[in-house]
């Protein structure tokens, strides 16, 4: 096992990794920007190194500064967390070339899955159904229109280098597709420096189901079942749960095997997530693969009792997986709410500022992953997530009720958070029945708007 690693991230995920390190006896080195001097990850780590000014490009995305810090601190490996450099194949390569282990997949895994068109091809080769569409980059508008004609409207235009909803456009007819195609290209160029886009059929009322996998690079790949992440707003997940209330045991087994097959086919190593869309008839289609630890990984941890971050560390340090597929069982139900510093009543505008009071929920079945404390000034430079609350119960109903109880107890003073919006979702009858698609949040907001008017 490693003796000392650096965590190239901030916020709750940096703390999550530090916690795993402490529990494994690994010394941890935090890096931080000038805006994060008082951030909790700098206090919880064994060492902390300032790597640059507030702007991410000059600190958390500054490869030279991070590698330099890793060399100074003499660490064996770097954990990238999520976001920032987590899916940067170039960074992973530099780490390896400097003799520092990158705690994540191999650079070629990242590069392959980072190209959404190549990823789809890989899934097809592995015998997994993909969404009907262009089967490659679409370079001109007429080709896009032909594909739309073949698969039928509505269609999505998506950036090949995409992620986080950028360079993504929906079109319902030829006219809107013509526009969507051009704006998606422009947005992709601006966001990723790569204008390439592809076209996919848009599946209505679908659910976003993703499968957590672990691969040890020694021939063993297992899955830790699925997470249902259909509660999204503008492609940002708000609530995740496991297992999905929609999957039959049969489909659960099938989708798990499909994810493992893809990972095996590309020689994947470390933790990863294969994302699928599930249609109303319980058919699933490969969407993309995330080659990193995800925000919502605690949902799976709580319901399977597998510590995914520890597994990442074990795999990267060269240990084979001890777990076998049959060891992994769903022990109840888990749900996560992402609490953001946002005012949902003002279009989810972000609300950074000073947290004047802080009291986290406790008691049975509640886990809080957060970097916030009383007196903490939330910097405006980074994302608005302040906390993740994860609740587990024997049944979906008990986990959801526990979440309501936990959110009732949660005090975060001085800033607006999305806790009230989560309450709204949790008390919605359709949500309670587990009958929701990725359209749920938009529909809920529509209803709320009407109520106000």
């Amino acid at each position, binding site marked *: 096992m490693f003796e000392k690693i650096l965590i190239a991230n901030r916020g709750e995920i940096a703390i999550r990794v530090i916690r795993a390190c402490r529990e494994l006896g690994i010394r941890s080195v935090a890096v931080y920007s*000038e805006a994060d*001097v*008082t951030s*909790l990850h*700098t*206090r*919880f*780590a*064994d*060492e*902390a*190194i*300032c*790597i*640059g*000014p507030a702007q991410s490009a000059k*600190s958390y995305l500054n490869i*030279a*500064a991070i*590698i*330099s*810090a890793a*060399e*100074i*601190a003499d660490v064996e490996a770097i954990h990238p967390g999520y976001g920032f450099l987590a899916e940067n194949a170039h960074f992973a390569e530099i780490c390896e070339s*400097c003799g520092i282990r990158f705690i994540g997949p191999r650079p070629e895994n990242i590069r392959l899955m980072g190209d959404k068109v190549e990823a789809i091809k890989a899934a097809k080769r592995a015998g997994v159904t993909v969404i009907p569409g262009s089967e490659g980059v679409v370079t001109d508008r007429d080709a896009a229109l032909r594909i739309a004609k073949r698969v039928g409207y509505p269609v999505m235009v998506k950036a090949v280098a995409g992620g986080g909803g950028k360079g993504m456009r929906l079109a319902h007819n030829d006219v809107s597709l013509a526009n969507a195609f051009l704006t998606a290209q422009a947005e992709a160029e601006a966001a990723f420096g790569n204008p390439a886009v592809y076209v996919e059929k848009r599946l209505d009322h679908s659910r976003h189901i993703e499968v957590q996998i672990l691969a040890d690079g020694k021939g063993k790949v297992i899955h830790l079942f699925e997470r249902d992440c259909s509660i999204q707003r503008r492609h940002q997940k708000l609530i995740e749960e496991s297992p999905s209330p929609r999957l039959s045991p049969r489909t659960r087994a099938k989708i798990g095997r499909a994810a493992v097959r893809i990972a095996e086919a590309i020689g994947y190593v470390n933790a990863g997530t294969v994302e699928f869309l599930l249609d109303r008839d319980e058919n699933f289609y490969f969407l993309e693969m995330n080659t990193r630890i995800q925000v919502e990984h605690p949902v799976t941890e709580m319901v399977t009792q597998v510590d995914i971050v520890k597994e990442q560390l074990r795999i990267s340090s060269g240990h084979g997986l001890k777990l076998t597929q049959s060891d992994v069982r769903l022990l109840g139900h888990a749900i996560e709410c992402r609490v953001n510093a946002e005012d949902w009543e003002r279009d989810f505008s972000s609300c950074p500022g000073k947290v004047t009071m802080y009291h986290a929920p406790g008691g049975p079945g509640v886990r809080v992953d957060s970097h916030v*404390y*009383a*007196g*903490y*000034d939330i910097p405006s430079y980074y994302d608005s997530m302040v906390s993740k609350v994860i609740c587990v119960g024997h049944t979906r109903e008990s986990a959801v009720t526990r979440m309501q109880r936990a959110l009732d107890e949660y005090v975060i003073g001085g800033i607006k958070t999305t806790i009230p919006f989560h309450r709204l979702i949790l008390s919605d009858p359709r949500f309670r029945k587990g009958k929701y698609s990725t359209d749920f949040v938009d529909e809920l907001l529509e209803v709320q708007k009407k109520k106000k008017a």
Partner: protein
Amino acid sequence: MNIKEIKEIVTLMNENEITEFIIEREGFKLSIKKGPQFERAAVITQAIAPAAPAIPIPASAGQTGEAKSEPEGTFIVSPMVGTFYSSPSPDLPSFVQVGQEVDEETVVCIIEAMKVMNEIKAERKGKILGVLAENGEAVEFGKKIFKIGDPSAAK
């Protein structure tokens, strides 16, 4: 009002958690403000990890705090994370000596980052008053590496 009375007022402020005290008379004004804000934040962040081991590389928190009370331009800070070298090679003399006058273009040290030797320039005119990093020491972003005074200013 003499220093003794002022001390009494400060004691009074401490004992009673007074944050602002202003007294004005003809030709006289005394204003004392206590900033619980910054102190408190510092206390909280320090105390938040009471069991955390000492951090070997000094956090820039203290530096930022300090800097406020001193005139600007008093320090040359490291523009990057790396290893500090005071001379081009171990057998050569230091780039600069205490007492030496420097200008914008004077190279004051090298910081090695990712095997690259970065020459660091003073970027202002002034007199080197102190070297704050040891040869071969690891420095983080923002670490004060030289103390620098006005050109030709005594002390």
